[in-house]
């Protein structure tokens, strides 16, 4: 028999997560501009609504109203597929993130995780690497040399940095003995956050997350000064909006994953000793997770407005000659520690 309650639960959850991701992505653009402004001793957007909080709506509306141009020599089908795939994968990754403790209505459990996959992390890595195709297809289909260069850079960068990223995750998996994201989070109950046991792994993962999201200092695929926007040079209107939006969604999801893997997800020290009723505990846990996520989104932006862009050879050297050996060492050290010390 089909479990209708389960389906209803999941549909509600998916819709909520969808809306929240889009809202956070939209407001990240506002946050980005505000943070850029205050770091540069400016004020930032403040004309649309009080403190400019309607700015993302104005920007979004503008995207819809712009002329939608497809270049004459572009591959029509792939040209549309690129941004669609990119935003689709960006949204899909949110499925495995445990957003908080479960709600209880009577004896019905409402789990705040769309899919509690037992291979959650593999799913994550798989979906993230499909995202690379979005950029590659988009850049290829535009039939423009700058777009192609941007796409090439993006794909080689994503492939290079996925290796150390996977290695960093392996050391986490070694410690938790599980690929399930919820189990990894629950293992960090209290203050046993993975960041204290895996500082090197955290650093590697963080750097790779920046590279995977194409964020400064690794924003070479779109470097506006040399590639005039890189892979989205030829895009306009909402297709461009998709690319930009997906980038902010990626940033949001990466922040969530960093929080889950290294900073205890929705746990914080003392959460369980407060003896709250399960529903209130669930709300508190959601707030805790979002607090951590917002901190990391802020961190992403803070880094962007601090560091200049890498040169391409520096990027590759960092990836292959520094991060990969370090991450292999980290895996070996974790394994040795688990076998001989513990």
């Amino acid at each position, binding site marked *: 028999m089909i479990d209708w309650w389960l389906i209803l639960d999941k549909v509600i959850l998916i819709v909520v997560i969808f809306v929240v991701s889009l809202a956070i992505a939209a407001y990240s653009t506002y946050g980005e501009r505000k943070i850029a402004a*205050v*770091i*540069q*001793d*400016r*004020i930032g957007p*403040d004309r649309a609504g009080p403190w400019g909080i309607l700015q993302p709506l104005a920007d979004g509306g503008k995207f819809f109203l712009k002329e939608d141009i497809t270049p004459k020599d572009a591959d029509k089908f792939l040209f549309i597929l690129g941004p669609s795939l990119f935003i689709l994968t960006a949204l899909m990754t949110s499925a495995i993130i445990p957003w908080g403790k479960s709600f209880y209505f009577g004896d019905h459990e409402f789990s705040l995780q769309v899919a509690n996959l037992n291979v959650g992390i593999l799913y994550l890595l798989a979906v993230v690497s499909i995202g690379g195709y979005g950029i590659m297809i988009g850049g290829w289909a535009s039939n423009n040399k700058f777009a192609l260069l941007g796409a090439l850079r993006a794909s080689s960068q994503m492939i290079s940095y996925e290796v150390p990223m996977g290695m960093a995750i392996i050391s986490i998996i070694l410690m938790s003995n599980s690929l399930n994201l919820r189990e990894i989070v629950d293992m960090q109950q209290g203050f046993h956050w993975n960041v204290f046991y895996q500082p090197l792994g955290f650093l590697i993962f963080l750097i790779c997350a920046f590279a995977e999201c194409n964020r400064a200092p690794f924003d070479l695929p779109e470097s506006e000064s040399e590639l005039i926007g890189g892979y989205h040079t030829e895009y306009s209107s909402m297709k461009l909006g998709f690319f930009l939006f997906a980038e902010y969604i990626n940033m949001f999801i990466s922040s969530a994953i960093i929080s889950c893997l290294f900073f205890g997800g929705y746990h914080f020290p003392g959460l369980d000793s407060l003896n709250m009723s399960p529903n209130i505990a669930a709300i508190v846990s959601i707030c805790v997770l979002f607090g951590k996520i917002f901190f990391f989104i802020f961190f992403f932006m*803070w*880094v962007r*407005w*601090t*560091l200049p862009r890498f040169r391409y050879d520096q990027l590759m050297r960092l990836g292959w000659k520094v991060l990969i050996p370090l991450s292999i060492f980290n895996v070996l050290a974790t394994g040795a520690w688990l076998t001989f010390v513990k």
Partner: protein
Amino acid sequence: MQLTNRSKVASVKTLNWVEQLYLPAIIKGMIITFSHIFRKKATVRYPEQKRPIANIYRGLHVLKRDEEGRENCTACGLCAVACPAEAITMEAAERKKGEEHLYREEKYAAMYEINMLRCIFCGLCEEACPKDAIYLTDRILPSNYARNRFIYGKDLLVEGTTPETRIDISGRKKDYEMNV
């Protein structure tokens, strides 16, 4: 010969291993940017907030009237001659009987135009004027969508007769006379 003591010796030394980690430098940079969040902002929210402007600021021109509300300008053309940008054009006319309350002198400017796109706001017209008729003010030239609207005629240049529509330039006169 050393002119200042600010010159620095250029160094091409390679980074040591701590510097090669980049992390200390990155953290230092991030602390610097973070501290800027709390600095005073340099932004001036323009239409609501204005930066203080000196009395002798050379902005939009005004054609003055005297105390009785008569136009000072006598269309002598000295301002147009003085103007390095050749921005001023005028047509003179003779004052008729019964127009004494409108124009102070027997000859007046029937048409007087300044092309604001040519004007460089040097203030030489003001210095050339023997009749205290033209002054630059601390008002800022507004932007516009069409080029021909930058040609300001008498309707935009001459100040009004009522006290509210008069353009005050007394501060400018005082400062100016002090400086001369």
